[in-house]
């Protein structure tokens, strides 16, 4: 698998960003970060990530809105979006599905599970 791909981590909590960034970099991915929805959208154009790890609960534009914007954008509709959510309820998953999200991980994030989900989404991206 080509690990030379960029993952964009979006979370308003700096500590979370740092943990995810360090972990993913240790796995050989290139990582970019943003701390709110609008910055994330600006970053998209700059780094052209293969996957976005997107926190749901953020001030301003929430994760669902950001996801919808990414998926509706002709240039970025194939970018994989993995939601990071505190709630794993049925209704939340529906909201995720309607926003066009590809996958989700539940907080607190199990890093091994995260690595597996990142891997399978990057793989699915090549297939889709």
């Amino acid at each position, binding site marked *: 698998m080509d690990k030379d791909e960029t993952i964009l981590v979006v979370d308003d909590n700096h500590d979370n960003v740092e943990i995810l960034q360090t972990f993913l970099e240790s796995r050989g991915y290139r990582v970019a970060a943003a701390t709110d929805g609008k910055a994330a959208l600006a970053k998209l154009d700059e780094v052209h990530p293969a996957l976005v790890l997107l926190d749901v609960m953020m001030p301003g534009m929430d994760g669902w809105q950001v996801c919808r914007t990414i998926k509706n*954008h002709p240039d970025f509709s194939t970018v994989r979006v993995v939601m990071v959510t505190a709630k794993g309820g049925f209704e939340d*998953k529906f909201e*995720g*599905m309607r926003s066009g999200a*590809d996958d989700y991980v539940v907080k607190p994030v199990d890093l091994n599970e995260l690595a597996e989900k990142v891997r399978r989404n990057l793989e*699915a*991206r090549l297939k*889709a």
Partner: protein
Amino acid sequence: MKILARVQDAGLLEEVTAAANDLGAELIVIGGGPNGNDQQLFDALRTHPGLLFVEAVVGGNLPRMRAETRARGIGLVAACGSQREIQRVLEVGVDEWILLPSSVSELASRFQAAMRRRREGDHPDATSRAAEHLRYEELLYDRFTGFPTLSVMIDRGRDMLERAGRLTILYIEFVRYSKLEEIYGWQKLDEVLQTTANAVRVFYDSQREKEESLVMVSHTGDDDFIFFTDLQAIPAEVERRVNQIVEDLEAHIRTQLDETHGEDIAGLFSIYVGATTIFRNPKIRTERLIYRGIREAAQAARSVEHRERSRKVTDLKTMLREGAVEIEFHPIVVTDTQEVYGYEALARGGIKGMRSPEVMFGVAEEANLIWELSRLCRQRAIEGIPTHLNSEQYLFLNIDPHDFRDPTFRYLDMEELGIDHPERIVLEITERTAITDYPAFQEYLKVFREQGFRFAVDDAGSGYAGLGSIANLSPDFIKLDISLISGIDTNFMKQNLVETMVNFANDNGIKVIAEGVEREDEYETVKSLGCHFTQGFLFHQPRFMTQPTQPAGH
């Protein structure tokens, strides 16, 4: 959020488009002609964009742009090609300026900065005359479309009537299928109305170039539009010209709706145009003349509408009389073995313009013929059993909650229904229809169940009922909505949802049908997730009743 841009340079326009996209904003471009486009720009400002972007070299009345954007809290950004231009835009007091050439990311961040500054920054002086003037103007222009309201129209109409002695009024009635919001949501309706308003605006601008005398367009707040024109043609020509304008306008709106929203949604809208011409009469007050003219034009539009509707109702009655309904039989297969388990019967109208089930049932509902149409569709589907199904296969029939109020259906006159084996029939009830009275509905279902009928909840997951409501109906089948299945092979979110629904179904003794399976990979995925049955174009093209066919499975 909306960004209004007046740009001439093609390269810059491309960058602005990309920047707007990045910000998730809708971009409206106002042409940069040398003159005359200011009015269009100021009209568009009334629709409350978040930002106005101008290329300084295009010119126009910058001070007025600044005053109006400031009063409305709209950000103003100017792109400059020289130091002199920068000096000029700084004097005017723009929120942000850019020296060309620029980049997409610079544009995006300037846009954001300007809007932020506008939001947080200086608010218009409440007592200033400019602000007061604008507040009044707000009342005179429709906030949604930016078109003038009737009071402004009357004023300009009076001028035209006095100048030309004659005024033609076009009334454009815009009618939507009543269930549109229920099925697609109000956001969709808003989008469609916006498309229509834009189409009317573009048409109006292009007409004005050809035809100086076509002047005004107004939005009545009721999704209708009014045009005034004092066509300078000779009287005999006027009617032909008006008909031509009406025809062009209708065609233009239709094309825009089709292109933007697809035929299915566009088909749910109708446009009716009525026209009337009034003449100056010194004995009657001009305003009264104009109001009367508008009323007449609106009545003319409505009578076109009534004619159209009654034509459709006549079509429907003809269909009912001749039994002109076609049934498509869509196979439902056992996921593991791909054996045909049963067929879903889908009805289509047999007359042009009535093919879509939504239109056909919509007309029937308005004409109070819904039971008759449902009966015909059921009857035709049931008639197809011997020729399309073998003795082990099931017929899936769509049922509307209305049908339970139909005496012939409700009291289960099996003979009249033509049903010999109710145990071979599965009644599908869509999750999209809000069921308001659950206890009564469950009572109906009980009676049917005792006779041997089985039930499916259709379109499950489309968003209206949760799993709890589905459980309340204790169906035999859950049919998963197409939106859950389409692309499921690469979407883990959908996979997870379907897995949850399959587990829920297994716990409750319900079978799951995956609908809308079109690709092999989707099939493999729903199979691995444990969906018991599968339906979709992957397996069989639908077969029409009109085609001679062998009973399935032989």
